[in-house]
């Protein structure tokens, strides 16, 4: 399980432009007058998209061994469980 000899470098400038555009869209739609539900959904989607770009390309997760990806994913279900369970305290 040796580390990849080739250092794949994606097009960082393209990722940067993508991040800038997504940020602009995020800020823009706040003033669009969408219904609250749609706004939240759209913002969450955009934020996750940006986060994935940073994680997969800048942090190279796309090019790392699968085992590392599994390790990195472990905290996420735990975070979800904590928030999901405690939100049950508020029956809305």
């Amino acid at each position, binding site marked *: *399980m*040796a*580390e*990849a*000899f*080739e*250092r*794949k*470098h*994606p*097009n*960082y*400038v*393209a*990722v*940067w432009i*993508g*991040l*800038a555009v997504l*940020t602009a869209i*995020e*800020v823009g739609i*706040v003033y669009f007058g969408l219904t*609250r539900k749609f706004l*939240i959904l759209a*913002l*969450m989607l*955009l*934020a996750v998209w*940006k*986060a994935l*770009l*940073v*994680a997969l*390309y*800048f*942090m190279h997760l796309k090019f*790392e*061994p699968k*085992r*590392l990806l599994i*390790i*990195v994913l*472990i*905290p*996420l279900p*735990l*975070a979800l469980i*904590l*928030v999901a369970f*405690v*939100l049950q*305290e*508020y029956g*809305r």
Partner: protein
Amino acid sequence: MAHAATVHPHPEHAPGQGQVGVYTQKLGMWIFLCSEVMFFTALIGSYIILRWGSLDVWPKPQGVLNIPLTALNTFILICSSVSMVKAFASITHGDQAGLKKWLVVTCFGGAFFVSVQAYEYWHLSHEGFVPGGFVEGSELFRRALEGHIAGATGGAIVPAAANLFGSTFYTMTGFHGFHVTCGVVCMIWVTIKAFRGGYTQTGYHGVEVVGLYWHFVDLVWIILFTIVYLF
């Protein structure tokens, strides 16, 4: 996203069996970042829970916080992430000049971010928004009251939610800012080492590892900016 694959030699030490397949310092940094995810989960999770569970309406962030300035700050931080990864790409090509240039840019980007945040804190607290909530009769309290988001109770803000807005805002962004500051200190250290010729085409692990921390801090901000400033 199209990407050009560039191939570089990367010498290996003998890997053991059943390993993850990354060198020890990188593995260590990723595990540390897992713990950081949990740390921010506590803070951000609490924010989500307190805000969702708040019977009172939440102040509209756009009325209280400076969205355009913070949007610019977000962009600068993203740029510093790009410069960081370009520094890393440079040293994998053996480009010492590129490494130094991009590391310096990253340091400045990080320092800029922290400075703007410090200014933001100073401005907000002067205008009446503090960790304890809003100062009675202050300008920001007035703006928070008029820009509220109608909630379950339909009425205006009562102090409780205003208090919690202060508590959660300052704690989350404060600790993020603290992490950025620590990152800037490490970045300066790495930059100095780079100027002293401490990294080579085959010995660049320190750059990659500090880069991972830097991107993580950027990633957390991407989430924070969205759910604190824009929601």
